[in-house]
């Protein structure tokens, strides 16, 4: 690491190593969180850093502007590169990875060539600035506190959403013509286990009856046979709760699936 930091092109070599690590993380079967951490620099920083290095040699611009250009130029590579590529291929993970890896390698090559042929300039320091333990601890506490605030807000929103209780009922067509049938479904969002009675009728004629017991958050679906549906009259599914009609849906036979 120290040799890499002292090397005149240490920053560019580090970029290549990180890009290679991202490539490996993309092709090897590793857990998603690890993949996200290893690949994120490729999607957020590396192409932009390489492009900035290809344009501006070390010491040409200050560190702050280089940081900004690193972020924005990565967006440029994805946005403008993708704009060109999508005219010939469909953009997917492989295409994005190829675009970012090839552009990073290409810009690094240009930057290395410019450094080799240009006037001698001091190398970019690839080490992070030193910060004392106290400030690091302060920032860590702030991060933990901010994370706790997000956790509190998240639980608050979940509580609010869970406070809204309901049961959903649906009926959907399946097949067409003589094969026309239907599916009825239930979703229990009442926050506790509920017992339901579902009656399906056509033109006043009962077709099917179910008694369903669903836990909180559970779904259920039942099928109506094609043979049970006769004529053009709408099929009506009524959901009863405590003896009263609670929900009702209806479907005209022959409708599109």
């Amino acid at each position, binding site marked *: 690491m120290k040799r890499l930091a002292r090397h005149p092109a240490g920053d560019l070599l580090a970029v290549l190593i990180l890009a290679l690590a991202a490539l490996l993380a993309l092709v090897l079967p590793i857990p998603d969180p690890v993949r996200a951490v290893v690949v994120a620099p490729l999607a957020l920083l590396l192409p932009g850093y390489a492009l900035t290095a290809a344009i501006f040699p070390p010491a040409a611009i200050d560190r702050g502007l280089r940081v900004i250009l690193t972020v924005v130029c990565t967006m440029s590579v994805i946005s403008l590169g*993708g704009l060109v590529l999508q005219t010939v291929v469909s953009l997917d993970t492989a295409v994005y990875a190829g675009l970012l890896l090839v552009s990073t390698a290409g810009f690094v090559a240009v930057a290395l060539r410019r450094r080799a042929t240009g006037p001698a300039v001091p190398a970019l320091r690839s080490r992070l600035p030193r910060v004392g333990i106290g400030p690091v601890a302060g920032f860590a506490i702030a991060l933990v506190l901010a994370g706790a605030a997000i956790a509190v807000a998240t639980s608050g929103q979940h509580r*609010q959403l869970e406070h809204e209780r309901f049961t959903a009922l649906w009926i959907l067509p399946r097949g067409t013509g003589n094969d026309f049938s239907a599916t009825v479904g239930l979703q229990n969002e009442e926050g506790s286990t509920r017992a339901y009675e579902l009656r399906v009728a056509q033109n006043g004629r009962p077709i099917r009856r179910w008694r369903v017991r669903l836990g909180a958050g559970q779904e259920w679906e039942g099928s109506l046979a094609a043979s049970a549906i006769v004529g053009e009259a709408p099929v009506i599914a009524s959901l009863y709760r405590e003896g009263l009609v609670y929900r009702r849906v209806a479907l005209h036979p022959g409708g599109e699936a």
Partner: protein
Amino acid sequence: MSASRASAASAPARPRPAGREARKREMPARLSMGSAPLLAVVAAAGLMLVALGNNAARESLGSAPLLFWSGLSLTYGPIAYRLLSRSASRAERIALVLILGMALYGVKILHSPVSFDLHDELGTWRQTSDLIANGHYLSFNPLVEGYAGYPTLSSVTAALAQLCHLNIFHAGLIMIGIARATLMLALFLFLERVTGSARCAGVGAAIYACNPSFLYFDSQFGYESLALPVAGALLLVTLLWTGEGRPEGRRPWLEVLAALAVLICTLTVTHHMTSYAVLAFLLAWVATAWLVGGRLSRRAAINSRSWRWPLVEMPGPGWIRVGPLVPALLLAATVAAWFFLVAHKVTVAELGGTLTGVVESTVGLIFGSHGPKTLFQSSGQTNSFAARVLALASVVPLLLAIPFGLWRTWRRGSNPPIWKVLALAGSLFPVTLGLRLTLEGTETSQRASEFVFLGLAFLVAILVEGWSDRPRRHLATVGRNAALAALATVIFLGGFVIGESPVTRQPGPFLVSAESRSVSSEGLAASHFAARNLRPYSEILSDRPNATFLASYAHLNPLLGYVAGVPVTQVFFGRTFTPEDRTIIGDGHIRYIVVDGRQSRSLPVVGIYFERYEPHAFAHRKPIGEADLQKFGFAHGFNRIYSNGPIVIYDTTSLPPEKHAPGGP
């Protein structure tokens, strides 16, 4: 601490190994963060108060506003105070500016920490989801038409989500977070280079954060949030080109031109209004440089100030080196090419109606055909007296700063042109306030604030710097800075009052047509059902909040505007289902109609139930009738395929042909 240092200094020097000395010399200097870590903790504590306040608001508790506003003040005020101080180091100021930007981004996350729930955010969600599904840019967007022509945000989010196996929500949060941090850094560096003072830059960044859009709108998952840092980077590189501000040595012109080209292309495909605003700014800069440079030449007041000619060594005639002429021309050509070749339809569709409305309403206001809008009132939502006072108290200091700032920047010809252009940009602030006198102009005023506040931030910063030049006693300095920080906090809170409707500042119980306040479990369940079971990309008719969810999560296309000269939303108004309604459904190829029965409970908070072209838009006097919404259940041919209580979905495929459409109940 100081005692131990003193004793260490007075102790006889012990010989140290040469290697250790060498290593110490090689180590980078320790950054002086000053009080930044402590203030980061204070800001995080402010976030905790905001989170608790939001939870209290969700349960309609009386403590909600106190917790929320205290949290905002705690997040902003102490950092503003420290940025005003003369003793903070540059590194500390940069850290504080970043902490401020990220903490205020945290406030936005705390508002909706589980999912995106703003209209524009879900529009971007749809655009990104379509890109992931189809692999191609520029797909039609039914929620925000402009997104179809400006693909940067959707493309970078899609790339991050696909490469890192993240969902769109988390990828979007990361992208906007990075954009926010980059914007704050770019803002600091820009103001620092222009003014030559890190203190000015810090104060300016704090004032910029007071713009009414900063807290929520510019933090949302929308293309403008990403365009602002790109614009910041472009302005910084333009400073390299012109050599204005703090000189940094000469550059080969091709290097700067290459960077300009990359940034200009990126900005052009990221956001229309930001690229137009930057173009206008650059053109004004060119004009000012031309005027000021010419006057100076006539006076023979030639000096070596670096701003007079570009720092880059570029061949060509002299006129091409006036200010940022080359960047302006490049941007103009790129914007024009993108507009005419790719994005003209979606840009005109999105901006055309808004701008026409602004012009018409402003002309109407001037000539008396329209009365002014009631200030501090939005579609029946009225601000409290305290909020009005806060809003006014935030505007007055900024208005007062403008003439003084203009005088300070324009009185001396030797001030660089960028100073004068920034002052002019800041002086547009009263104009944007005037736009708020009309309903149509309010949105434009809001959207202009992130550009106008760059100038205001500069004006306020140089005034503060000039005013506090004189050395004072420590106590007086502390008192003055505390007063200024308190004033800045009032400006920040008042800006938020101006920019955000009273009902959407905090989350809370369900409200009819109230953007994020209309998110409910029933609505989310209906959209998830639709995503699993309904045919994607079908045309639907729905109210605005449900249409937003259905268009994003279920990839359905809400139909807006007119069909055969009749507003499509006419279908919802009226107690019976008429042949005209049937014609609209047929001609509009509407597959599904989604009805939210809760609409009949109250007037729409944002003034519309469905869209701006609906009957009585922004002028509803009574809620839509219950019978109006229930008529589809009685009309022949509608398949009532889904019901979860308030929300019912009807399928229109079994409707009889148009000529046979019977009446309602």
